[in-house]
């Protein structure tokens, strides 16, 4: 009807005394240990860890393989589009000026949003490289406006004063050459980040200052270009055709794009780096179409195609960055909620720990009081019964020792060693646990089978706590079989390496098995089917295993009994989080 395995027997079994109490010392380590270790570290050190502090950012998380594949796909599509367009590049498309404001508006919005995204990234990461890049995007976006406004014939109907012939081309040259310079600056700055990341001034101030600066510069340059047309280089021979001088602009741009690509390629670390390379490739293709295949002929098929492709891929890049941000945000949110759950679990186990200590100490204290009362009464009689009084005093001595053991056990659990995480050989812990309960096993006629995987990798954890878990489960298993008389009492302990890289330990018994109604509840604090335990044992086992990044659960054994299994991430397991929780 009830399964005795649901709690460990705490008292009167030396082999398992304290199997459960104090297992929750894990929570304290999670908080205090961290502070102790980091207290003495200097700022430079923590700064150099900046990237690992923020693993969820576009500029810090490495691109996945699928992102790499997507980037290559985008480039392949672009190159094929280039090849398809090439033969028609020089076909002029007359009267397409009307489409230009639409293109300009879209490009403006696109680049300003990208800039905003990067500024947001900067506000979190404080990376000057990211700040420079976002300024680059903002500058490029802002300069689209005067570029479109000065484009010959576009806004003539609005009655704007006619800008000089060279204005549009000069603005285009500024954008074309400015942007790759910003990207280059980003690529060169990003690895130097940690040392200069500790910048002075508030983030808000820096961002607002940067935006104001870029706007001022963009206005200033536009003003200069529009008012001093005669001082500008002669890029255009007429409204549609470029001059000889213009040739240097795309050539320089190509050189800058290629340099940027090389620098990014050699220093590629993050999702952002990957997609910036795509952007540079796109710009390269755009410039090939704009300036070479269409020979710089404005409003030709090649010219429009270049702009269209450039815009399309810029949008793809923006969408990818946005969706990456959302994905990373979701990951972060999950991590935060997991951390919150862990903290709540830690609180619960702290409460459970105090309740358990109270219980473990109260039990012998209550007996001592009762024995003392009895002793007083034997002595207080008209003819005192010294034998009975002596017996009562002996029982008090026993209870006192029992309470002392409880306290000693608690101290052991809180000793430094219990919270240290080292490489642990689970097989050795299992052997030890089985050896320590030899006496118990012989008395109860339990037959032990240990099937331990010789090749079992090490795990990282607290040997003291993990030892308690195993002792606890073994004690439960033995307890569960005390009522069994009609079959062999078999305790089978197995260890194995799983395909996932984590290790699996199982403790099987041939006992009375679990009541299905109770199976869900046995891990709850205070759930017990015994009177001498408070149901702490399994809850502690579970919290220890979970604090080590593993899982503990129970199933029925065939044909009789129960199997408790737990997993732990092994040191060989690349996805192991055991270390991360404590460092």
């Amino acid at each position, binding site marked *: 009807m009830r399964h005795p395995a649901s709690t460990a027997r705490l008292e*009167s079994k030396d082999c398992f005394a304290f199997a459960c109490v104090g297992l929750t010392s894990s929570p304290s380590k999670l908080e205090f240990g961290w502070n102790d270790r980091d207290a003495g570290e200097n700022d430079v050190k923590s700064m150099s860890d900046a990237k690992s502090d923020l693993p969820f950012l576009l500029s810090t998380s490495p691109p996945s393989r699928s992102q790499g594949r997507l980037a290559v796909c985008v480039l392949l599509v672009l190159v094929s589009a280039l090849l398809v367009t090439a033969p028609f590049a020089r076909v002029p498309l007359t009267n397409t000026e009307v489409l230009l404001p639409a293109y300009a508006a879209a490009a403006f919005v696109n680049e300003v949003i990208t800039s905003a995204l990067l500024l947001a990234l900067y506000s979190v990461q404080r990376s000057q490289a990211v700040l420079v890049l976002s300024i680059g995007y903002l500058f490029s976006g802002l300069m689209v406006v005067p570029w479109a406004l000065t484009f010959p014939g576009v806004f003539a109907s609005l009655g704007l004063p006619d800008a000089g012939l060279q204005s549009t081309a000069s603005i285009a040259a500024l954008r074309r050459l400015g942007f790759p310079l910003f990207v280059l600056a980003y690529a060169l700055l990003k690895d130097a980040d940690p040392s200069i990341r500790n910048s002075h001034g508030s983030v808000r101030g820096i961002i607002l200052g940067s935006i104001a600066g870029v706007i001022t510069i963009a206005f200033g340059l536009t003003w200069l270009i529009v008012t001093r047309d005669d001082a500008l280089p002669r890029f255009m021979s007429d409204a549609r055709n470029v001059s000889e001088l213009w040739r240097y602009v795309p050539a320089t741009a190509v050189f800058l794009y290629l340099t940027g690509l090389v620098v990014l390629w050699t220093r590629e670390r993050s999702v952002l780096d990957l997609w910036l390379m795509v952007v540079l490739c796109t710009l390269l293709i755009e410039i090939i179409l704009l300036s070479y295949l269409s020979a710089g002929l404005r409003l030709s098929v090649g010219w429009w195609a270049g702009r269209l492709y450039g815009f399309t891929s810029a949008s793809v890049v923006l969408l990818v960055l946005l969706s990456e941000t959302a994905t990373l945000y979701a990951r972060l949110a999950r991590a935060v909620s997991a951390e919150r759950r862990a903290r709540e679990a830690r609180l619960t186990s702290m409460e459970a720990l105090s309740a358990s200590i109270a219980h473990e100490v109260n039990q012998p204290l*209550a007996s*001592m009081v*009762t024995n003392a*009362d009895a002793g007083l*009464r034997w002595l207080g009689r008209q003819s005192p019964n010294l034998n009975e009084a002596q017996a009562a005093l002996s029982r008090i001595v*026993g209870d006192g020792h029992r309470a002392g053991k409880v306290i000693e056990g608690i101290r052991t659990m809180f000793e430094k060693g219990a919270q240290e995480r080292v490489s642990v050989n689970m097989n050795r812990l299992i052997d030890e646990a089985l050896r320590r309960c030899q006496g118990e096993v012989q008395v109860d006629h339990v037959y032990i089978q240990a099937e331990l995987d010789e090749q079992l990798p090490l795990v990282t954890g607290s040997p003291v706590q993990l030892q308690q878990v195993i002792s606890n489960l073994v004690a439960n298993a033995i307890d569960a079989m005390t009522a069994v008389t009609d079959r062999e009492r078999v305790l089978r302990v197995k260890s194995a390496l799983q395909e996932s890289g984590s290790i699996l330990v199982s403790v099987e018994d041939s006992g009375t098995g679990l009541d299905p109604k109770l199976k869900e509840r046995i891990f709850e604090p205070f759930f017990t089917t015994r009177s001498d335990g408070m149901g702490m044992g399994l809850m502690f086992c579970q919290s220890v295993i979970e604090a080590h990044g593993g899982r503990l659960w129970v199933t029925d054994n065939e044909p009789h009994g129960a199997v408790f299994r737990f997993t732990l991430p092994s040191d060989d397991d690349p996805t192991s989080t055991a270390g991360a929780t404590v460092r």
Partner: protein
Amino acid sequence: MSDQPLISIVDDDESAREAIAGLVRSLGFVVAEFESAADFLKSDHLSRTACLIADVRMPGMTGPELHNYLTAAGTPIPAVLITAYPDEAAHARALKPGVRCYLAKPLDPDELLACIRSAIGDGNKGFQ
């Protein structure tokens, strides 16, 4: 001593059981100890027991369950329930006809004596 009312104590915790047995003996009663309800039900002390002192939480049959079982079987024994975890709800549930007291450990000797006396009736007073 056979005319002394027999007090049976059922508690699975050995040290608690021995302590309570010692106290009840010092109050002047004859005591029989049992580790579980099943042991008690099997024993030949069952019919002679004038008062049952049983722990509320035990593996297998609990104190209240034992009392209910005896009542249902037509052999009710006045009971004193004891617990290390006194709580109001359990107290209210436990107090049924025939359950004299619901006491928290550590037991107060005078209170326990009063409970036992009330359970076995005034005719069978223990001597102090």
